[in-house]
């Protein structure tokens, strides 16, 4: 039996659980909180900030990637005076408008001198982040390795597996990188039997392709665990089979614990036999019925299934307690979204984008980069309500609300890069996905422009997938140009 301590309470966990799953199993859904206003967040599949906690003294560990270990001590961060009591959560009662532009804007703060130094010190604590880790005597780099292949396939789902098999059969060398430690997790959770992989495929599982450099000819794969080194992959061509993610609905409280994407709900149900809630509502853009049926088959009680555009509000204070469909209230303790589906544009952007004034994706992705599977299909539009609720979190980790974004748009700030700078939207642990999708959808709606015509803010590597020691290990395997 594995025992872990969560905020000093001992919990039993099952082998094979991640910490996020183990907590969910015990009904602990509120793991973290937003940085400024201390709104609760949890395991959502959408926002990394919801699953960050301190593990055995190390801050900002992703609990959805961290397997449980006997004796592990896990604490929530950004709480004062202690992990189990957070007086700072009184900030939730502040009007969101007070933190427009972040805590850093200087209108109400001292302009210089000692008073400013004191304010800055306070700010550093209010900024809501973890304590540094304890000091080791010395630290060592995690040596990286280099891998050269003909083709690199990003994504271990059925499309990635099929693409890798097809390439391997032609005699070319191929590497397959997958975030999951098991390939095709979501497909398996939907009841799809995984393909048998060709024996010559080099599988790098439990790794994230966190950066595409030199027009895609150099890719960096980062391992999820700290002890391993990164892999620098040089490939002749790149196949993106990264699928799509479901975008959180743009309604009030979509950041609350209990709201999760279909992938996460399916993983919980299929691999861990943990239902997303006692009464689940499922919304989507077409896939909701299939997802609801599968969740029901996995033992969940589905109380509502319908199109995401029908959803008008999510209720709850510390977790979901119900949703509004039009004027009808439905009681539920979990809300699963299955669409709008959009691809994470990060790798394609980094491969194709360049510029002198702005790194933008005006360049088409090179001929030796291709997309297969769900990722190849067009992205779906995010439904933006006509009457946008200003309290909707566009980027919950950084407490950016729809009100803050529309306030700027209405003052003629319509350049996505400037919106990003003025609000810090997408500057948190997710590094822009899904937050910029929501921000751009809102901007498009408000200004009447097509969303595809907007110039995206730059998607930058390595999007918190790589540690400092792992990056240091790359010194010996990647030479300057």
């Amino acid at each position, binding site marked *: 039996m594995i025992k872990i301590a969560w905020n000093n309470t001992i919990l039993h966990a099952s082998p094979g659980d991640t910490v996020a799953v183990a907590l969910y199993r015990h009904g602990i859904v509120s793991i973290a909180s937003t940085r400024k206003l201390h709104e609760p967040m949890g395991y959502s599949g959408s926002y990394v900030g919801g699953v960050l906690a301190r593990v055995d003294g190390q801050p900002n560990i992703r609990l959805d990637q961290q397997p449980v270990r006997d004796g592990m001590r896990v604490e929530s961060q950004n709480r004062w005076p202690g992990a189990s009591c957070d007086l700072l959560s009184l900030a939730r009662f502040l009007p969101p408008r007070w933190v427009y532009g972040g805590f*850093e804007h*200087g209108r109400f703060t001292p302009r210089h001198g000692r008073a400013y130094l004191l304010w800055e010190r306070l700010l550093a604590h209010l*900024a809501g982040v973890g304590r540094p880790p304890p000091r080791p005597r010395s630290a060592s780099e995690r040596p990286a390795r280099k891998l050269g292949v003909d083709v690199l396939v990003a994504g271990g789902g059925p499309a990635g597996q099929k693409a890798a098999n097809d390439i391997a059969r032609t005699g070319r060398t191929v590497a397959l990188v997958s975030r999951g430690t098991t390939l095709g997790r979501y497909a398996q959770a939907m009841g799809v039997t995984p393909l048998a992989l060709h024996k010559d495929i080099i599988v790098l599982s439990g790794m994230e392709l966190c950066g595409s450099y030199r027009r895609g000819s150099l890719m960096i794969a980062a391992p999820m665990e700290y002890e391993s080194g990164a892999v620098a992959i040089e490939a002749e061509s790149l196949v993106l089979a990264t699928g799509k993610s479901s975008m959180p609905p743009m309604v009030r409280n979509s950041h609350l614990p209990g709201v999760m994407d279909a992938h996460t709900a399916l993983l919980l149900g299929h691999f861990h036999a943990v239902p997303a809630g006692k009464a689940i509502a499922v919304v989507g853009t077409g896939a909701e019925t299939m997802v609801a049926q599968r969740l029901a088959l996995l033992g969940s009680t589905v109380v509502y299934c319908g199109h995401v555009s029908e959803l008008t509000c999510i209720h709850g204070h510390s977790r979901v307690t119900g949703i509004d469909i039009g004027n009808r209230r439905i009681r539920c303790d979990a809300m699963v979204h299955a669409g709008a589906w959009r691809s994470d544009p990060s790798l394609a952007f980094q491969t194709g984008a360049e510029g002198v004034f702005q790194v933008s994706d005006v360049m088409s992705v090179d001929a030796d980069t291709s997309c297969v599977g769900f990722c190849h299909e067009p992205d779906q539009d995010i439904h933006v309500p006509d009457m946008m609720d200003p309290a909707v979190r566009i980027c919950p980790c950084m407490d950016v609300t729809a009100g803050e974004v529309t306030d700027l748009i209405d003052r003629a700030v319509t350049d996505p890069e400037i919106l990003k700078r003025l609000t810090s939207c997408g500057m948190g642990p997710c590094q822009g996905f899904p937050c910029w999708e929501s921000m751009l959808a809102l901007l498009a709606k408000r200004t009447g422009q097509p969303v595809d015509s907007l110039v995206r803010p*730059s998607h*930058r*590597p390595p999007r918190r997938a790589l540690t*400092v020691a792992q990056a240091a290990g790359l010194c010996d395997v990647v030479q300057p140009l």
Partner: protein
Amino acid sequence: MQGLSCAINLALLGIRDIVVLDAGYWQGGASGRNGCLIRPGFGGHDWTRLFELSWREWTTLSQKLGHNVMFTERGYTMIAETGQSADMLRNASQLHRQYGITSEILTSRQISKLLPAINQEYVTAALHQPRGGMAPHHSVMKGYLHACGEKGIEVRYRTAITGFDMHDHSVRGVYVNDHLIRCDTVVIAAGPQSPELARYAQAEIDGYMMRIEAMALEPMRPLIGPALALIDSLAYFHQTARGEVVGGTEVPETPQTNLRADVPAMAAMARVYTRLFPQLADIRILRQWAGLLHISSDLAPLLGQHPRVRDLWFSAGWSYGFAGAPGAGLLMAKAIAKGQVDEILRPFALDRFEKGNPIQEAGVVMIKN
């Protein structure tokens, strides 16, 4: 930032009809991609005089602009990792005293107190300037932009200059496509594009475009107080008020002319962090990015009127432009509006190379490709 600083200082001297054109977006150039670090003292006389003046401007910049630029005097510490650099820092400390700059070589005990997280094994000397520090570039640029607006200066972004209207080796206007903006004086403060714009006006200037890179670590509570510059590792970094450790280093590479980031600079910076701040080893890197700058042969800025094209001024070739902009803007404006080229500005003249007077400076953290 050079452009806005020059513009606001011109307006404060009573000059009207000022327009600022920027080919990029607001803060998209080096103004929004720098290390945010500010210090008065360098290793040589010329840089120290210019940056001491600029630092004095920083201390009153919020009042001057009427907006809080959030300059914080958290201190600026230069770290030497070799004996040679340690000697340079000791000499610099004496130079700073000549100019009345508070600066001291720290004892090992003082280093432990100021930087408890640093691994002193690699430190041969540390020079601390307690009045130096940093300011978030977004608040500074917000201050400058708003102040310019309030003074009636028109600032247009995403507006590229496509040519100059020239008469008899003198500039009389700029073209934005077919549109001609007539003017008496043009100041080129276009960062990496300055040499190209100079060529449009048949006015060659020294230097070329190159890329440097930086990165931000995920945020945490305060670990590193002052701004830091490592002379030998060519690295500079600080921890922002919201907790991210932001900094960069340089690697010997063929100069790149594009904003794509690459692996070696990130890896080299990570190596510096791992060695000097072991607590950072398992912290994750949020993002990395590249910026472009115009680097001159002696790494010093080019400030003043072009020697052969009348009414064409430059504030170019900057590598410490964020720290230097408030002071340089003040001196440039005085030179343009009143025709008084300050003694501090004079050594940075554009023709210093042909006159055999390049600037000597050992206290900058900058690679020469």
